[in-house]
């Protein structure tokens, strides 16, 4: 392997993190996911004692992986997820093993949606989704503070309003 070219240009991270409460939301979501996988195993173990031994092992594994996931992933996400809105564009950075930086120029933004699921609502959180004319141009900022999300969506909507054209 060649060494990466040193002295090349790089990017600094976008300025803003999501709301700290998003960690709890992600953890809860992870726990629910674990429960969904775990519950059928418990039921099956209760119904068919013959396979209970096997299910004890798989159930134990599920629990261990689930707890680890709920402890680690929300922290990692919180540490990595960033967003920023410059004069020209909306930027989001996400990913863990695979970094992904998405850019949507404000002049190309078509819709700005805020979205609050029941879980997000419980934590006072909200997602903002920005779509462009491309089928794969959308970018989403999850786990924003609900108030911040409204302000952000407002700001973006106003920024795109006075721009003409069909943004394609």
């Amino acid at each position, binding site marked *: 392997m060649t060494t*990466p070219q040193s002295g090349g*240009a*790089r990017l600094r991270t976008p300025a803003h993190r999501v709301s700290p409460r998003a960690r709890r939301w992600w953890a809860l979501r992870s726990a629910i996911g674990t429960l969904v996988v775990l519950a059928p195993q418990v039921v099956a173990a209760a119904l068919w004692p013959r396979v209970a031994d096997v299910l004890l092992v798989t159930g134990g594994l599920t629990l261990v992986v689930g707890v680890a996931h709920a402890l680690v992933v929300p922290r990692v996400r919180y540490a990595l997820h960033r967003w920023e809105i*410059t004069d020209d564009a909306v930027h989001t950075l996400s990913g863990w093993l695979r970094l992904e930086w998405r*850019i*949507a120029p404000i002049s190309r933004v078509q819709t700005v949606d805020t979205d609050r699921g029941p879980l997000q609502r419980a934590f006072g959180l909200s997602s903002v989704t920005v779509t462009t*004319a491309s089928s794969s141009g959308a970018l989403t900022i999850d786990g924003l503070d609900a108030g911040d999300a409204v302000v952000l969506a407002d700001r973006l909507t106003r920024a795109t309003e006075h721009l003409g054209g069909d943004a*394609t």
Partner: protein
Amino acid sequence: MTTVSDLPWQRLDRRMLVVHPIVDLAKLVPVLLVIAITGGTADDRWRLWGGLALAAAVMLYGVSRWFTTTYRIGTDRVELRTGLLRRHHHSVHRDRIRTADLTANPAHRLFGLAVVRVGTGRREGGENAELTLDAVARGEAERLRALLLREAVPVGPDAPAAPELARLRWTWVRFAPLTFSALAVVGAVWFGLLRLAEEFSIRPGPQVLEETAGRAPIWLGAVALLVTAVVGAAVVFVEGWWGYRLTRADDGGLVLRRGLLTRRTLSLEGRRVRGVELDEPLLVRLGRGARPLALTTGLRADGAGEHVGAVGPAMPRREAHRVAAGVLGVGEDEATRTRLVRHPRAALVRRLTRGLGPALVVAAVLLILPRVPGDEVLVPVLLGGAALLAVDRIRSLGHALTPSALVARQGAWVRRTVVLRRGGVIGWRLEQSLTQRRAGLVTLHAVTAAGRGRYEVLDVDVARALELVEDVTPGLLAPFVIDGRGARSFVRR
């Protein structure tokens, strides 16, 4: 065309009174056949009258469609009313109209009619984004198309000498069996034959099968497959591309005409063209052929599942380059023939490791497993094939930035050369996996409203990726760029 708002509603062509019932009946034929053939124990009179009643109902419905369907084209909107029991009023703003395509199936053509399909170019909304006039007289259809797209009204079907970009050459039929659709045709034909044999219960008994199949040499089967592939592909080619002509419209857009039984006229508005693509599937490439595509906004795959935006069949590579350049209106060496920049060495190494790695694993498993028949043939073929593909991927990989467009090429099974106009880029995505991070590479996706939505420049140096972004969309990333000496990730945390 009057401009008053209380414009009279117009009906479809009167000949549709005949065409609709005929087409609907034709669709009903399989059902009627099943009714006629099946059983034998049930009451035959019930069968006869049931079938007739169904046919009559279908014909009545077909006739009613003419009476219930009206349309009008006003100064600012096109309106269509349909439905017998459930009335539907559909209206499309004329500013929003992006496409007006004509199709005519054999029944339509017999009566000199054509279907006008008015599209708004929106991807979402499905049926609602489209308005279909099925059907009006051929001349009227041409007039409507020109009117809706604000083109100059053509005097005759092909009277004006529009600049011609391409025209069918029959020698191109040689590429037809090399395309994937040829395989699909073979499958469909054989499946159909088997089903037919089953219907007529000429399913051969096992002993018959054994005798004939046992005696017939294996090459006979291969030849039969090959012949159906070649003939089938040729038939599909002729039906689809008969009378193929690609011309330039006044507004810089394109008009594509093709089809033997079903005649299609497809117009691509000039300002919707975002770029071109040159596809070279492996077999076609070996035959020195390629397929030109236009990257335009608001095109959906048509019913036949054809590749969206194809502006020609597989043709000799030289022709394809010429057509692609013609679509963009630039020179060939600024379109798909642009001189490409090689990617960094790490990117080439990645092609090798990614291509050979899985093959090596499979080969190792094959060797370790005891007594796999044909080990000594399979393993070299597998490794050799993987190596060739990897080398081919290395040879394909490249990108460039011309004054007007971003060009990227990659792939072995299908080598795609994408030329995306700078103005067509409406966003970016930079991706870096763990292994890419170690090699200092990123994959840059140019997001666009056309075609597949985004096109990637695979495995470029981080600095080069940022340079490309800066060049195509100046200032977009500037607030973020820092000196990243020693950083491996493209983002410095």
